[in-house]
């Protein structure tokens, strides 16, 4: 049983992860982007005397790449976050905006720690150990506290996940809008990190046997370790669950965010024509139909018209026959 578990589970998880990810991205890619709808957060490129915001309102591919890198690596938009604070009493008090970088900081801490941890683990799957993995590990273990020494990211990721969970539970509005699936994502991540930390610092396993096993996984010829220990099995299972559900939950934002049209489109809507592949024809009220209906009034007002006498078309086919005319007076907007 444990052998089957240790061999089958990670492969099933990997297949679900890679296949699910590919399927999700394919679905998005297969769906057209009919319109050019960037959210412009900076000055457009227009007049020579006005400095354009090349990244916040990019008009070039380089600008878009810059904008996406800022989003993906530094969480630019989240960095904007300010809280609308409590205002003084009265009907129209001063607006209050409070710095609120905690969410940004928490998100950065969590995601970057996760990346470092993944890179550190690369050594388990590749022989010889990639230099980037040992380098990241040595930087991460810089403080050399404890034996085995604590990784900074282990501490940071726990604190960050704790914060992300804490804010969901504490803030009444967030608690109100949080779905069970949101707690599930946090729970799985906490399980992964928690079991990993326990495995390293408390219920250790035979690292040599584990690496034999993980190298075997990578080589598609795995042999399960003889006595992996409960800590390792728990860690492996939680990681497998994380991988397996990632493409099918909100965590797929990792891939999806790069495709967001409000961010990855250049603000060049008037400069270059964006083509909509399904640009469906929308029949509109033509000038001819319009002149046919208003000819006398146009003539009386002395406005130029196309046909001084006679109509463009048979009145039976005209737009004037479609339903009752709308009221002449309508809202002033």
């Amino acid at each position, binding site marked *: 049983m444990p052998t089957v578990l240790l061999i089958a589970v990670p492969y099933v998880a990997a297949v679900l992860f890679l296949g699910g990810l590919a399927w*999700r991205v394919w679905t998005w890619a297969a*769906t*057209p*982007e*009919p*319109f050019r*709808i960037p*959210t*412009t*957060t900076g*000055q*457009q*490129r*227009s*007049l020579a*005397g*006005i400095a354009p*915001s090349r990244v916040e309102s990019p008009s070039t591919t380089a600008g878009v790449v810059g904008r996406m890198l800022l989003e993906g690596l530094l969480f630019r*938009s*989240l960095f*904007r*976050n300010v809280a*609308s604070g409590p*205002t003084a009493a009265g*009907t*129209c008090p*001063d*607006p209050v*905006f409070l710095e609120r970088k905690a969410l940004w900081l928490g*998100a950065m801490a969590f995601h970057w720690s996760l990346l470092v941890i993944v890179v550190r683990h690369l050594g388990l799957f590749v022989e010889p150990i990639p230099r980037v993995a040992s380098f990241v590990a040595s930087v991460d273990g810089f403080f050399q506290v404890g034996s085995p020494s604590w990784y900074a990211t282990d501490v940071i990721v726990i604190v960050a996940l704790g914060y992300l969970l804490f804010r969901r539970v504490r803030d009444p*509005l*967030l*608690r109100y*809008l949080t779905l069970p*699936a*949101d707690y599930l994502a946090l729970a799985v991540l906490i399980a992964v990190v928690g079991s990993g930390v326990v495995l390293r610092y408390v219920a250790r396993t035979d690292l040599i046997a584990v690496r034999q096993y993980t190298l075997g996984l990578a080589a598609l010829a795995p042999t399960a370790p003889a006595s992996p220990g409960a800590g390792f099995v728990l860690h492996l299972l939680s990681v497998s669950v994380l991988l397996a559900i990632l493409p099918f939950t*909100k*965590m797929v*934002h990792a891939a999806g965010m790069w*495709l967001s*049209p*409000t961010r990855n489109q250049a603000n060049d809507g*008037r400069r270059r*024509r964006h083509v909509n592949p399904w640009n*469906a024809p*929308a029949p*509109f009220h033509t*000038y001819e139909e319009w002149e046919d209906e*208003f000819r006398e009034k*146009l003539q009386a*007002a*002395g*406005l*130029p018209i196309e046909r001084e006498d006679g109509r463009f078309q048979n009145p039976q086919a005209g737009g004037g026959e479609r339903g009752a*005319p*709308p009221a*002449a007076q309508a*809202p*002033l*907007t």
Partner: protein
Amino acid sequence: MAQQKPDPAQLAAVEYIPPRRGWRDPRVEFRKGTYNHAAARRHLEYLGLPNPRDWQPSDADWQLPANWKQIILDGMKDRLERYRSFRLFMDICVRCGACADKCHFYLGSGDPKNTPVLRAELIRSVYRRYFTAAGRLFGPLAGARDLTEDVLKEWFYYFHQCTECRRCSVFCPFGIDTAEITMIGRELLNLVGCNIQWIIEPVANCDRVGNHLGIQPHGFKDSLDFAADELEELTGIRVEIPINRKGAEVLFVVPSADYFGLPHYFTLLGYLMMLHEAGIDYTFSAYASEGGNFGLFASHEMTKRLNAKMYAEAKRLGVKWILGGECGHMWRVVHQYMGTMNGPADFLEVPVSPATGTRFDHASSTKMLHVCEFTADLIAHGKLALDPSRNDHWNVTFHDSCNPARGMGLYEEPRLILRRVLNHFHEMPEETIRERTLCCGSGAGLGTDENFEMRMRGGRPRAMAVNYVRKRHGTNCVACICAVDKATLPPLLEYWVPGVEVAGVHELLGNALVMKGEHPRTTDLRGEPLEGMGGGDA
């Protein structure tokens, strides 16, 4: 207004405590003052829209078609396959809540379903239930909800409490744009005939007559002639206002409120003065006499249908390019949809200013220019003589309209004009202008009298920012470049910040513009005497 206006103190007391009832419960109360009237049967019939009938949102029975549910689900499927934005935004929200207090309707109402995240969840929950494996398997645990009539009513209520201003999309770490979701949501509602009068009536008018107000060609001409008379009285100069003139270089399209509403009308005077002074060979069109596009608030198809007239008319008249007036959603359509929907505009030429020779390459495909871009270029080249002291009775701040701000990036052009025509100009707090600008609370077709309470709630954050500069700098005028702003900011400011007026950028330009051969001005464009007016109330 027939009904009693609510007490501002009452609306200002907003509770931000979510209700005990979970958000998955769809029931809403259509309370007077917080929703819009249903579209009249005749407009739906004229436009050929589904399910025309006499009904109101407050009715218990909405007289939906028997297969309404299938229509909605089919409509969702169709749109999931046609809009990457929609599908992606259904999939990747992590409910981090960064958007929540960025929505002016949430700030003004405290209703959690007015946070962008939950507004989207209203439809996302249905998406999960019918279009994802997790939702089908795990139901509520995965955040899925059945599509019921109550859910549809909830959609109607909350998708008409979103002004599609896109402020949330600035703060969303993934750029999720609630405007996309609201627009699709409204399209779906349109499929079963659940639309509002304030959107559908202007659409019907615009389709048939040429403008939202349904002003027929002779009325349009009267209005422009009247403006010419008024300008002659003000300046001593008779300006030409050509209509439907073939062979002009430029077709000028403005929102119809500019020639029929106040204070929009003063902006029209400003345009006319500028065009005369710059010596532009242009024409209006009575057929394409609407820059705005309420189709945007109904469906993409309707957007395209109304917008098509601009190019059609430009082609018929044989102009070289198109100039567009001060309007918000009009510019969202022109900048982000027009070329795609109704282009390529290969029968037009890249706009070139006849006065300065500037070639506007940023409009080289769509061939349509914003009047602020055009005027800013004139000013930058010193082509306009300006006397800012004629605006000394105004102490001005600038309200970035949502669409030119977040859908275009038009921030500095109007400011360049304002700084040259004003002596007293002060910005509102940074968090409330430019890309973070706060909405008037009445855009996207919500500016009705019956929706008064919700508008005042939604506009309060903007009003607070106006009051901020009023208290510190004595601001008495909010300048803006949007026809909806000009229609809805005055009642908003009167309600929250009495004593602050609203003016178009080109009205203020018109005040300062020294025309060649003009007689000494004694009044501003509003007819207010120029002398003896200090920085106080206008």
